[in-house]
């Protein structure tokens, strides 16, 4: 636990410093130093995304649980990690730009409603994925580990479930850029940050696949138990998320 504590301390410290640095650098942007400073900002945004996504959240748990309960390859983990982060960043961009350019006057009245709907959609999708995983595990048990042809539908659903709730970290940077009038930089920063986050989320998926492979050989033909546990945990995650929107 001591190592974990130190790790947490470093994580918070790095984010604290990156947050300050990124704000100062964006503010210092002017016509003379625009290219180099913009590139520096995008580099920092990438690092910020990478470190930011190491903390709890951002779909890592969902991805980890999904790949724990599904036999897959590392390529798929990368694909899903990046799909989540792209959706995550895109939804943050849409929400944040929406505040300023489309819903400026309506937003205060309706924002709660919009955010609740986004969260509820996400929760329902996660619950569906959990139920689907449990069903697949049950089927796999019935068919005695007979190879199943699985579609990519469930993976896309997982990516949408995890990514649809916009990332407040991305939203803050985007809004900060907009306030200072750097609209293009706002979009590029969100993309850069999402590339960093995607890498972290992908690693979570890869580690789960590696764990699944190890545990699979250890459990010798009873991997459906692992799959059922994974599916049930995804279901629980979705239920808690849904209940959270009801408070």
């Amino acid at each position: 636990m001591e190592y974990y504590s130190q790790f947490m301390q470093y994580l918070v410290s790095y984010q604290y410093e990156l947050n300050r640095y990124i704000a100062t650098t964006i503010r210092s942007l002017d016509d003379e130093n625009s290219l180099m400073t913009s590139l520096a900002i995008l580099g920092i945004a990438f690092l910020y995304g990478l470190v930011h996504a190491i903390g709890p959240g951002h779909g890592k748990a969902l991805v980890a649980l999904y790949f724990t309960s599904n036999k897959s390859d590392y390529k798929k983990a990368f694909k899903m990690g990046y799909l989540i982060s792209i959706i995550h960043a895109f939804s943050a961009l849409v929400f944040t730009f929406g505040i300023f350019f489309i819903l400026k006057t309506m937003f205060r009245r309706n924002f709660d409603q919009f955010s609740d709907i986004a969260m509820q959609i996400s929760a329902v999708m996660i619950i569906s994925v959990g139920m689907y995983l449990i069903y697949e595990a049950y089927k796999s048990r019935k068919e005695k580990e007979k190879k199943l042809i699985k579609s990519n539908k469930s993976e896309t659903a997982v990516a949408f479930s995890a990514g649809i709730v916009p990332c407040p970290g991305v939203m803050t940077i985007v809004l900060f850029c907009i306030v200072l009038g750097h609209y293009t930089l706002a979009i590029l920063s969100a993309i850069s940050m999402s590339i960093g986050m995607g890498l972290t989320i992908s690693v979570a998926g890869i580690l789960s696949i590696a764990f699944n492979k190890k545990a699979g050989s250890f459990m010798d033909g009873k991997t459906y138990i692992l799959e059922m546990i994974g599916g049930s945990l995804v279901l629980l995650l979705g239920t808690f998320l849904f209940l959270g929107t009801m408070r």
Partner: protein
Amino acid sequence: MKKYFIYLLFVSSLLAHPHTFIDVYPTIKIENGKAKKIQFIWKIDEMTSSILILDVDTDGDEKISSKENEFIKNNYFTIFEDYHFYTYIRVNGKVIPFPQTKNFKATIEKHRVCYKFEIEGDFNMKNTVIEVGDTDFYVALVIKQEFLNVQGMKAIATGVDNDFYYGYKVEFK
């Protein structure tokens, strides 16, 4: 914009890890081991401040008027009552109820929104530890040694790992 801010609080509690950073500057004058008043200054990070400024600095002069101060107090400061202002005062190891805050004043310093406020009581600082931290881990509150302004006793600021969140504490010797 207030709803946007609250939304960030809410969503981030589900995606728990810090999105807002607050530097906490405590000022305490201790006489014979006791203090009657503790003053805190919160300096909110520049990016979060920019969101706040959009809504609260209505005349855009980068200064907070008394009217704007009242608006911030009622809309952006008192919401932290539910979170005990992220501050836990431990006396002999037990957390005491957080006293009523007084003399709230908001300012903008170097593009950062600052909240200054005080609490009053009869604090025996030998047995007292001040802890800051957000249990939801949305806000990271930071106290560095150089943020302390303590007269009359030696004060030491250290980090505290509380499993789900990371905070800081100040001990007095």
